[in-house]
């Protein structure tokens, strides 16, 4: 069976403006040759630090920004070849939930018309069936029918995110892309939204691309995880494998750095990112697309080879792929710092 979404060698470059100071404007490769597949009913999480290119990649996958290069297929159709009208029609099948429900909802629109609009535009219901559909959508995200008559500012952050999710569901999509949907929410409300996403994903058989930096949330809801660093996927694996035995040094460092709500637990000392300490951050930022491993400045295992050649994402067994010349060996049970027993 073909995957629902198939991306090959996606590249997105941004060019700074030309100025009299520099003739050749520098090129920033925000996404640097990413391959990705997503099956129906599957949840794939995309993690990485800010600036790693996860949001840009997600936007490329939905053609919200045009990739500079690469191939993109959605349900077997070449998405990049679609004309604007055909793309708009196809958009019904993939929808996005944004991080900040405050800025992504029109403040002047009541919730009812807001949810009815995509249904009407895509002609999914007749005009007289719209109110019933709005009520149904609200119920799906746990809001009362009366919410339809209210404005976004009358709701709390968690409720607004529910509205954002309802709006995405309005077109009955096959794929939902959620970009940090819980990061802006209060801790006590976060779990509610995570539960809602898991529940909807199961009930509707949705494919879910979840972008997040909270690794505990990712472990909770993902089937598969892809870790991005400086525009490239450095590791991709089923969730259990990635969290128990990360092979690439970057996810290892990420996992080790997560603080845990367990007093008395000693976090292993942070892997000193050489760039951070030596003020090299600025230099490494320019290196997107270079023929070298982007992580080598921070890597405790970097060798000469990492300086001259970019490691490619390659299988290391059990559906686990890693882009490293010196991946961590798996020794017995679990990883060093974060075996399940450790928690």
């Amino acid at each position, binding site marked *: 069976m073909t995957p629902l979404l198939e991306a090959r060698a996606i590249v997105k470059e941004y060019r700074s403006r030309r100025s009299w100071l520099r003739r050749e404007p520098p090129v920033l490769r925000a996404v640097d040759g990413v391959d990705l597949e997503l099956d129906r009913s599957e949840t794939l999480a995309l993690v990485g630090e800010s600036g790693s290119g996860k949001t840009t990649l997600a936007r490329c996958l939905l053609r919200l920004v045009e990739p500079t290069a690469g191939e993109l297929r959605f349900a077997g159709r070449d998405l990049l070849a679609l004309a604007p009208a055909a793309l708009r029609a196809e958009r019904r099948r993939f929808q996005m939930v944004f991080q900040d429900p405050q800025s992504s909802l029109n403040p002047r629109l009541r919730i009812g018309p807001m949810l009815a609009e995509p249904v009407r535009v895509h002609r999914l219901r007749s005009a007289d069936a719209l109110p019933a559909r709005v009520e149904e959508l609200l119920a799906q995200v746990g809001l009362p029918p009366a919410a339809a008559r209210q404005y976004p500012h009358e709701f709390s952050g968690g409720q607004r995110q529910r509205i954002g999710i309802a709006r995405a569901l309005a077109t009955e999509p096959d794929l939902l892309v959620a970009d940090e949907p819980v990061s802006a929410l209060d801790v006590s*409300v976060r*779990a509610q939204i995570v539960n809602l996403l898991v529940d909807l994903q199961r009930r509707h058989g949705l494919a879910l691309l979840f972008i997040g930096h909270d690794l505990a949330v990712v472990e909770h809801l993902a089937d598969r995880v892809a870790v991005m660093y400086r525009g490239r996927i450095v590791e991709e694996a089923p969730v259990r494998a990635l969290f128990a035995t990360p092979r690439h040094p970057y996810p290892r460092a990420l996992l080790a750095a997560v603080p845990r709500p367990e007093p008395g637990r000693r976090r292993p000392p942070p892997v000193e990112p050489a760039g951070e300490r030596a003020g090299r951050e600025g230099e490494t930022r320019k290196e997107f697309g270079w023929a070298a491993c982007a992580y080598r400045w921070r890597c405790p295992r970097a060798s000469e080879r990492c300086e001259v050649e970019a490691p490619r994402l390659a299988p290391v067994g059990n559906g686990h792929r890693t882009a490293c010349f010196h991946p961590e060996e798996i020794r017995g049970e679990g990883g060093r710092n974060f075996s*399940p027993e450790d928690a």
Partner: protein
Amino acid sequence: MSALAVEALTVAFPGPAGPVEVVRGASLRLERGEMVGLVGESGSGKSLTALAILGLLPPTARATSGRVLLDGRDLLGLPERELRLVRGGAIGLVFQEPLSALNPVLTAGRQLAEALRAHRRLGRRECAAAARELLDLVGLPERAAASYPHQLSGGQRQRVLLTLALASRPAFLLADEPTTALDVTVQAQILDLLAALRVRLRLGVLLVTHDLAVVAECCERAYVMYAGQIVEEGPVPALFGSPGHPYTAGLLAALPRLGRPAGRGTLPVVPGQVADPRHLPPGCAFHPRCPQAANRCREELPATVELGPGHRCRCFFPGPGGSGG
């Protein structure tokens, strides 16, 4: 023994229907050399409590009652001129967003020199030496002084901000969400740096955060705020091991944790929405979300009860029974 104490502090904003109290009788205490957490969600009043200590409340907000005592001296009534000596003097402050807290058109070194001259009246040469020492203290190379804020990474900026806060050799440091805008790997370094500074300079650090995991890792004591009140306080092991207030228990249960057994069960939740200070429910502000709320909770504000050494909570029915019902 040098100490910073907040006693029964109330902060209010004017509202169309009378003053809106966003901090309601909060008391806390910070001693030199300890790191104490102040945890709460948005609107809980945790940041305003920290700002009130330094007289930095937004223009419309007012501390309507209570005291802020620094070594026995009340800071709340101090004239601005004297307050400025305390601010960045005995008490340093670092913010969440170092990019907006730094001046974008001055190099890190210039800003540091300014702080040093203002608080320590150093000459040019002494100033340069002190700046070098401070940069080294926070783990920045000397050449960082020549950089403008935009040339530095998020972690480096936060380190620069720390040098400014430490320039006056303060006894206390108020850190308002100092790592929230940072990535986890950088957060880990900044937290380790704070822990090291605290020991080395015998700093009393008040860590204002929404992140319970950060508190578990760094603090020995913590205060939990909800709707402007401190609902629970205690040593971190007791607070996390046997939370007394159902809000603390609910927050802890709702945290997804790494290494939990497989399977996407449903996460336990704290039902409902965070209380809105403009429409606080009568009685205990948490009762609409509380799994064990009784009639009494809807009518009467619970008093603070002692649960153990230093472990107090504001609830009629405290105890491990509150763990999410």
